[in-house]
């Protein structure tokens, strides 16, 4: 019987192709909107997570802020050394300073940022070298005029195809030798903004030649993943308060940022946004379902005579009900399937347009499809019931 009912439903839809299509349009748009929004939301979240993870995992960033005593007090190398020595679980720690400079080579100039770092910094922040090498310990501790240039700097001041390794470039009026080109990391790499437009030099050289003091603007800590971030942060706070002579109720005049927390916060924010947009899209899906009910009710009235014929030739009330219900469900499932196909195209196209990864989410696709089938049952039930309640004599007489 169910096969026959399905056949009747298909025939009915085929008899009213245009109307069936218009009816399902609401479902198509609703399903497509929900899936596209969730897929794009996932893509954006993944893209942000990717950028955050370029900060490095298990990394704390410590920087001075205004405390009770006015202006922020910078850190010194001694603070960094103390952290390295006294806090268990710290793997790498390195201070950093940065300053805006103009880089010159062969008559080309380029605005960039010079950043003084240690080799620990490169490890902690997962800065990788595309070609060339990192600083030697001797170069680092002596603060030699050596530099690692970001890919954007290379592009801006070197002729394409020529190797910058071993060349001398000038940063303002300081000459230094390029020993490496950095791997591309993408934008949004944290406080240094564009992590591809940077020239990295030994910290001591940057302090001596660019910032002119032994201050450290911030430092990064990479800790052993076996240690809890909160435990490390607690001992860090204790140590730094002691070193900065903060007693009693004095507020911390420094801030510790955990990249994992940033990651979580951003993930939660984009998740909430995705959920909100998906709910709005879900409402349009609901409206689409009500549209189906409306058309099915009209269809019952319009087909009263046909229902009468079916009843007269021996259809049972429940068979008529099943037929109308099946029609609604088939329409909704058809709408769901087309919506999924449309969402696939839309989300793929939009993902590449806004440059986020396209992540196919099978759960939301299956759920949307099941939801549209459920709407077929929900909104098809009442019209189907009405059809099955018709009196065959009245129905046959209906004009």
């Amino acid at each position: 019987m169910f096969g026959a009912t399905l056949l009747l439903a298909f025939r009915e839809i085929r008899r009213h192709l245009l109307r069936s299509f218009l009816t399902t349009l609401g479902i198509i748009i609703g399903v497509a909107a929900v899936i596209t929004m969730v897929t794009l939301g996932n893509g954006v979240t993944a893209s942000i997570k990717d950028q955050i993870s370029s900060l490095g995992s298990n990394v704390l960033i410590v920087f001075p802020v205004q405390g009770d005593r006015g202006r922020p007090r910078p850190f010194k190398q001694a603070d960094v050394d103390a952290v390295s020595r006294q806090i268990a679980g710290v793997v790498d720690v390195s201070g950093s300073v940065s300053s805006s400079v103009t880089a010159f080579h062969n008559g080309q100039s380029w605005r960039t940022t010079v950043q003084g770092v240690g080799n620990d910094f490169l490890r902690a922040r997962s800065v990788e070298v595309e070609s060339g090498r990192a600083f030697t310990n001797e170069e680092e501790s002596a603060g030699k005029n050596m530099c690692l240039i970001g890919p954007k700097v290379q592009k801006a001041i070197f002729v394409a195809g020529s190797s910058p390794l071993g060349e001398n470039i000038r940063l303002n009026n300081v000459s230094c030798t390029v020993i490496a080109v950095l791997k591309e990391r993408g934008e949004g790499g944290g406080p240094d903004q564009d992590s591809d437009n940077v020239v990295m030099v030994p910290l001591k050289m940057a302090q001596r030649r660019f910032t002119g003091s032994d201050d450290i603007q911030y430092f990064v800590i990479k800790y052993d993943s076996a240690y809890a971030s909160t435990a490390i942060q607690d001992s860090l706070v204790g140590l730094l308060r002691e070193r900065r002579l903060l007693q009693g109720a004095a507020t911390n005049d420094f801030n510790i940022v955990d990249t994992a927390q940033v990651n979580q916060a951003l993930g939660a924010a984009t998740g909430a946004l995705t959920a909100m947009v998906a709910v709005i899209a879900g409402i349009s899906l609901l409206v689409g379902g009500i549209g189906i009910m409306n058309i099915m009710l009209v269809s019952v009235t319009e087909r009263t005579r046909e229902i009468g014929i079916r009843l007269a030739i021996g259809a049972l009330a429940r068979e008529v009900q099943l037929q109308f219900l099946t029609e609604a469900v088939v329409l909704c499932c058809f709408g769901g399937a087309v919506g999924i196909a449309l969402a696939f195209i839309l989300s793929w196209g939009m993902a590449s347009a806004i440059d986020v990864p396209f992540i196919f989410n099978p759960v939301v696709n299956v759920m949307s499809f099941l939801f549209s089938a459920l709407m077929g049952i929900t909104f098809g039930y009442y019209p189907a019931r009405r059809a099955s309640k018709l009196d065959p004599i009245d129905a046959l007489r209906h004009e």
Partner: protein
Amino acid sequence: MTPPEIPLIELEGITKTFGRGEAAFQALKGVDMRIERGDFVAVMGPSGSGKSTTMNILGCLDVPTSGIFRFRGVEVQALDRDQRSLLRRRYLGFVFQGFNLLARTSAVENVELPLLYRGEKKSERHAAAMRALDQVGLAPWADHTPAELSGGQQQRVAIARALVTQPDVLLADEPTGNLDTERSIEIMQLLTRLNGEGITILMVTHEEEMAAFANTIVRFRDGLVERVERGRRTRREEPA
């Protein structure tokens, strides 16, 4: 098989009242009737005489307010809606004045429809529908939709749809009401031939010319059977 002593259809004191209280209207006031297997009955009478109400009851579409309606010895007035549906599906075929074919649906699919509700296999369904169309001489038109057929052809498709289940009784409500005389006579000749093949036919008509094809004429007046004329068939199927 029904034992021969039990008539196919028996009505005893059938009344039917529509509405309630002041607005109540008694359409049938105690109808008694017997129809034997293989008969060709024309039901006649002015409008409001109760002939349509009687046909609805005979077609198991409606139940009497009181009285007994036995079909093959089964008391139909005691059956529920679904049981009556099954009775129609198994034993009855309907032909309507307005043909009542499904629009935008081919002739063969229209004819197949009752078999769908019987749950028959696709191949059997199709073969039976084609046989029925062949019986009414429309096999070559199987794939045409009602809009592509003439009125006479549409009515023949409707007859094929009624025949496809091989019913005991064919109920025809003004089958020629929408057709011109020539097509009407063709339809009546078809019904006569089918009756000759053993199907009992009950037909409502108001045209004496069409009633002349019937073997028995039942005349209604004011909710009662006024007169039954038996064995008065005056017209026969003309040789093809």
